[in-house]
């Protein structure tokens, strides 16, 4: 069997009373692109910080290529990290930034320059290499942030919410870059709180909440968790309590409640023929429904089932 590039076992980390990671375990095969999906506060950044070696005071173990990641500083030369923040120098241009960050690794100057130029092409910044970064758009900064994490040709790249706060087009271009890395054999873990992103560009998806992994697998595998069901999203001016009270009065046969929150609830039906009856039941009890959506099983449904709440909540 191929050796795993990353094996995280029972990682736990608390900030005082707050549990950030709770027995978090995750494996990664070489060349895999794993999307780690979790709502805000799930513990994604905490995980990346621990893996980066800059956060201490945790329990559990992390093996990188079969070695204890924290036992040897030099292992860090094989890992690239792209933090959630634009952690670089805005007073330097893109090329200068790559040269500085690359200079922290023992790469000969000439090779480093070549590598920097190649990377600027990959992240579509080569024509702006010498422009002041202050003029860059959010997407361009995000791409530079990624390039810096790649300057030393890491075998494993960890990205923390690489697409947060930028427009759709910029997101697509970043997801393309990540996808491309996977195809060239770089192992990638990227965190996000956006469903669509992991649906598109991962070979495997893990769903986490409250510091632990709830489910993982390929998209198809995950959707199988929900089963062959129809998902109904009900939204309107109702409270979670009112919705639950009305639902309790129905027979509820063949129906699963995925999530209930104020103004929005999700139900899953094994048999789509049962949907009209349920809707009638809701109307009869005067539930103020503004909108109804019927969807086929998707990752969102899996997420709702696993966490009991919608990502937007």
């Amino acid at each position, binding site marked *: 069997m191929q050796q795993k590039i990353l094996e995280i076992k029972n990682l736990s980390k608390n900030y005082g009373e707050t549990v950030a990671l709770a027995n978090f375990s995750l494996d990664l095969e070489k060349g895999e692109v794993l999307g780690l999906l979790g709502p805000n506060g799930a513990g994604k950044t905490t995980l990346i910080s621990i893996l*980066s*070696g*800059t956060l201490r005071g945790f329990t559990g173990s992390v093996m990188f290529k079969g070695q204890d990641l924290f036992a040897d*500083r*030099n292992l*860090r*030369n094989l*890992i690239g*990290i792209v*933090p959630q*923040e*634009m*952690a*670089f*120098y805005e*007073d*330097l241009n893109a090329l200068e930034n790559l040269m*500085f*960050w690359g*200079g*922290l*690794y*023992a790469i000969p100057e000439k090779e480093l320059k070549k590598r920097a130029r190649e990377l600027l092409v990959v992240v579509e910044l080569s024509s702006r290499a010498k422009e002041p970064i202050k003029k860059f758009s959010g997407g361009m900064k995000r791409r530079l942030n990624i390039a*810096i994490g790649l300057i*030393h040709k890491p075998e494993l790249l960890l990205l923390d919410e690489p697409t947060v706060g930028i427009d759709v087009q910029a997101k697509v271009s970043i997801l393309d870059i990540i996808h491309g890395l996977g195809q060239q054999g770089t192992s990638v873990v990227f965190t996000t709180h956006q469903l669509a992103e992991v649906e598109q560009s991962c070979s495997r998806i893990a769903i986490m909440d409250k510091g632990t992994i709830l489910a993982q697998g390929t998209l198809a595998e995950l959707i199988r968790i929900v089963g062959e069901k129809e998902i109904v999203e009900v939204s309107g001016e109702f409270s979670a309590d009112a919705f639950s009270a009305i639902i309790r009065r129905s027979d509820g046969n063949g129906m699963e409640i995925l999530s209930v929150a104020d103004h929005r609830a999700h139900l899953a039906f094994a048999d789509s023929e049962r949907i009209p009856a349920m809707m009638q039941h809701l109307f009869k009890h005067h539930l103020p429904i503004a909108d109804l959506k019927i969807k086929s099983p998707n990752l969102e449904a899996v997420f709702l089932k696993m966490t009991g709440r919608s990502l937007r909540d």
Partner: protein
Amino acid sequence: MKKIWHIGFLDLKLTVKDKAFFFWMLAFPLIFILIFGNLFRGSKTDTKASLTVLNQDQGKWGAYFIDKLKSPGIELTVEATEPKEYFRMLLIPADFSAKIEKRAAQTLELKKDSDANLQAGAVAETKIAQAMVKLIAELVLYGNRDMGAFFDSRSPYRDLVLVRTRLPEGTITKVPSGFDHVIPGILVQFVMMMVLIYGGISVMEDRKRRVLARILYSSASFAELFAGKFLGRVLMGLLQSAILIVAGLLFFRLNLGNLWLTGLNILVFTLAMACLSIFVGSVLKKEELIVGVSVLTANMFAALGGCWWPIEIVPPAFRALGMISPAYWAMDVFHQVIFFGKGLETVWPNLLVLLAFTAVFMALALRFFKINE
């Protein structure tokens, strides 16, 4: 080691890239130098007690007297006609020799320019008094003979009459002044201010931007990161010093005395400020706050330490208070080396005190330097 240089050198590069850099590091201190240089005008040309002698004497004694005025501390110019400019001028009248030979009393006139330095004037007047006493004594001893020729053949007699001026113990006979005092003073002030401001702000910003944390994502260790930041600030201080020294040499004929020693002094002082700036940037979280604290600290240290006016002219109590300022110790080294020609054997305690400041600031910096907010 290479990583430390890499990290440190970047800070220097970023400082130089700043648009306001040349204003803050060159133009601004030059303004200070000009203001204080003219305020304490021992005017450069007059620090060596210049004395112009207008010799209109018809006989031999005028020249003989002038010979007695020669001394290493005096810049003597002899003129036959009255020059347009002088700091102080001694008039030797046409009948100088005639009156001596007649043993008649006479009064010499000393004219002074209003700009003339008092200190230098005192040196010149003392020398004139010494020369008169010596001349009169020799006249008493040897009469009217041609003493020049006499002494040339009998040198042991030359100093038979010695006149020494003795001042009360502890009298400050020389106050460092002119640009040789002002430039080191402003240099010390600006090393403090620039290293604290630029160095402090960039520590704070790098931490906020998570650049410090990102450096540790590589195999660079915490120690290397700290050392790199420290080195960066030392380089900033040395650059500021170099700029002012070059400007001083070019425009003000700056004399730094023993360059090795003044250079060592600047280096040791900069080490202390580099540590202090890391501390300031680590505890303060806002740019305005860092600027405020830095300007205040630097100027207070400058005032107390004698960067603006020679510490020698302030009351002893104030001088004692000045010792809490690192600038005091650095300025004292400059004065000892530049004005009094002292060497390492005199100034090593000062350098040790500066190293002690460095140790204290280093401990504070290490205690508070962190990569996360």
